[in-house]
């Protein structure tokens, strides 16, 4: 019962945290792009005279979208049309359940994992959910009875499916190295150090996989340079026929996916909630110095570390989004199938070979490191 309550609290925490982050994300994106472009950005919405650099604009956006008329175009499939955005947001949201955002901590004798759902095949779960998210997009494209939407939906589907493969294979290397599909374990495994001072993060042992993953993950988020499904100046996007909050949900799903990808990148390659040289008992620097910390501080540092990394990734994504032009469809496919996919495969092969060569399979590679 209490476990359930704890899980509920955690779920709510993640739910609201993520939603707020998404809202914040829109603000961040506006402000960041403004700064890049020598502009000011949204800054005039005020409550009681407070403007807070435009922080209220996302609020205004969401209130407005809630009160906007919802149009289902004539000829469209009403149910699917309504279901599509729900799918998108739902699957984007539930995926967060598997993301660990902090180390476990002890409360009243209970071990509380800072993860909504501890799933030992969390990675598979995440991929499954991501794949299901595609349905939202394709349903949207299909249900709208609009050529542009259909084209957008098709593009999105093809793109997400293609890149999911590269994405998946890129991660195989990571799984092989850390030997687990449980994300919490995976993060924990990254807490070690290589040669005593290099944190054993995914990026260190799997740099190629990281690049492939990042590219493929960006493509999953459907943002520039991979925003073909919604490339505004080519085809308006699969959600062309959506208005009001349904459109807002696609919008939200978009940001959620970005955050999700940032979370994944953090978790898989940047040590998740790990802080270099921080162990559960405190800092243990390679040069021997130590800084003992109490457990709550340790956990909080972990959560903070995770959040910061995620935000940095988000910023990076946005920086890319406002810097690059977009791909063409065939180029995108070529990049996915002829670029990322082989590289990822080779990466897996090389990783496997190295692991085999080191003959550590039986004893565990980690033991060898340690």
């Amino acid at each position, binding site marked *: 019962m209490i476990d359930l309550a704890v899980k509920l609290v955690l779920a709510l925490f993640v739910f609201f945290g993520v939603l707020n982050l998404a809202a914040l994300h829109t603000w961040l994106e*506006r402000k960041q792009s*403004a700064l890049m*472009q*020598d*502009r*000011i*950005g*949204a*800054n*005039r*919405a005020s*409550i009681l005279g407070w403007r807070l650099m*435009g922080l*209220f*604009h996302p*609020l*205004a*956006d*969401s*209130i*407005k*979208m809630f*009160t*906007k*008329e*919802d*149009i289902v175009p004539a000829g469209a499939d009403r149910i699917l049309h309504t279901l599509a955005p729900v799918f998108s947001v739902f699957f984007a949201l539930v995926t967060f359940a598997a993301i660990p955002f902090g180390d476990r901590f002890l409360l009243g004798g209970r071990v509380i994992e800072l993860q909504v759902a501890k799933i030992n095949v969390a990675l598979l779960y995440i991929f499954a959910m991501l794949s299901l998210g595609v349905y939202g997009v394709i349903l949207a494209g299909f249900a709208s009875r609009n050529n542009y939407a259909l084209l957008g939906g098709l593009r999105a589907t093809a793109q997400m499916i293609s890149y999911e493969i590269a994405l998946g294979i890129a991660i195989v290397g990571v799984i092989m190295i850390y030997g687990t599909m449980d994300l919490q374990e995976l993060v924990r495994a990254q807490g070690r150090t290589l040669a005593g001072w290099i944190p054993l993060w995914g990026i260190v042992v799997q740099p190629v996989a990281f690049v492939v993953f990042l590219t493929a993950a960006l493509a999953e988020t459907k943002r520039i340079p991979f925003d073909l499904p919604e490339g*505004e*100046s080519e085809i*308006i*996007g699969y*959600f*062309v*026929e*959506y*208005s*009001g909050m349904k*459109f807002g949900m696609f919008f939200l799903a978009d940001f959620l996916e970005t955050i999700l990808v940032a979370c994944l990148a953090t978790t898989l390659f940047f040590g998740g909630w790990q802080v270099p040289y921080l162990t559960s008992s405190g800092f243990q620097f390679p040069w021997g110095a130590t800084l003992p910390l109490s457990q709550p501080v340790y956990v909080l540092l972990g959560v903070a570390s995770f959040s910061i990394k995620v935000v940095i990734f988000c910023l990076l994504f946005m920086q890319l989004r406002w810097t690059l032009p977009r791909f063409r469809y065939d180029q995108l496919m070529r990049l996915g199938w002829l670029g990322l996919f082989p590289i990822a495969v080779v990466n897996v092969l090389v990783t496997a070979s190295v692991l085999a060569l080191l003959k550590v399979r039986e004893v565990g590679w980690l033991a060898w490191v340690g």
Partner: protein
Amino acid sequence: MSGDAGFVTSRLDEAVGWARKYSIFQYPFVTACCGMEYMATACSHYDIDRFGAGLPRFSPRQADVLFVVGTISQKMAPVLKRIYDQMAEPKWVVSFGVCTCTGGFYDNYATLMGIDTIIPVDIYIPGCPPRPEYVLDGLLKLQAKIQAQHESGTRPAPEPRPELELEPWMPQR
């Protein structure tokens, strides 16, 4: 009806009005010269995003405000009308530039003499093309109008369209 409820609803309306005025997704129906100033308004020197109106949506379904930017010809008029009809409520129309306000000096066979002859217009921004300052002033006025309406859901009945002032003996166009 109790006073409290009225107060609450009115505050709610006010909040909705507030949100709507600071979240203007525009549909830029750009056709002509005014588009250049529209660009200038959107870009760094004027930055229409400061007013919360920086996000153009190229789908009329998602847009709140239809910016009709540039001359509308007779050939284009049905398209404009259709776009307007496709927009979701609540919606507003900004007529950007004199060609859309009144037809301007293209008083000939090809052009529509003001978009208000086919769709209701909320704000007229004259100028040929209007300097970005004109546009921002117009946007502020539009925001004031949106706030003033503060009715949830429906827009007020469109104003009666202005009749063309034709003297009885003038050549009937």
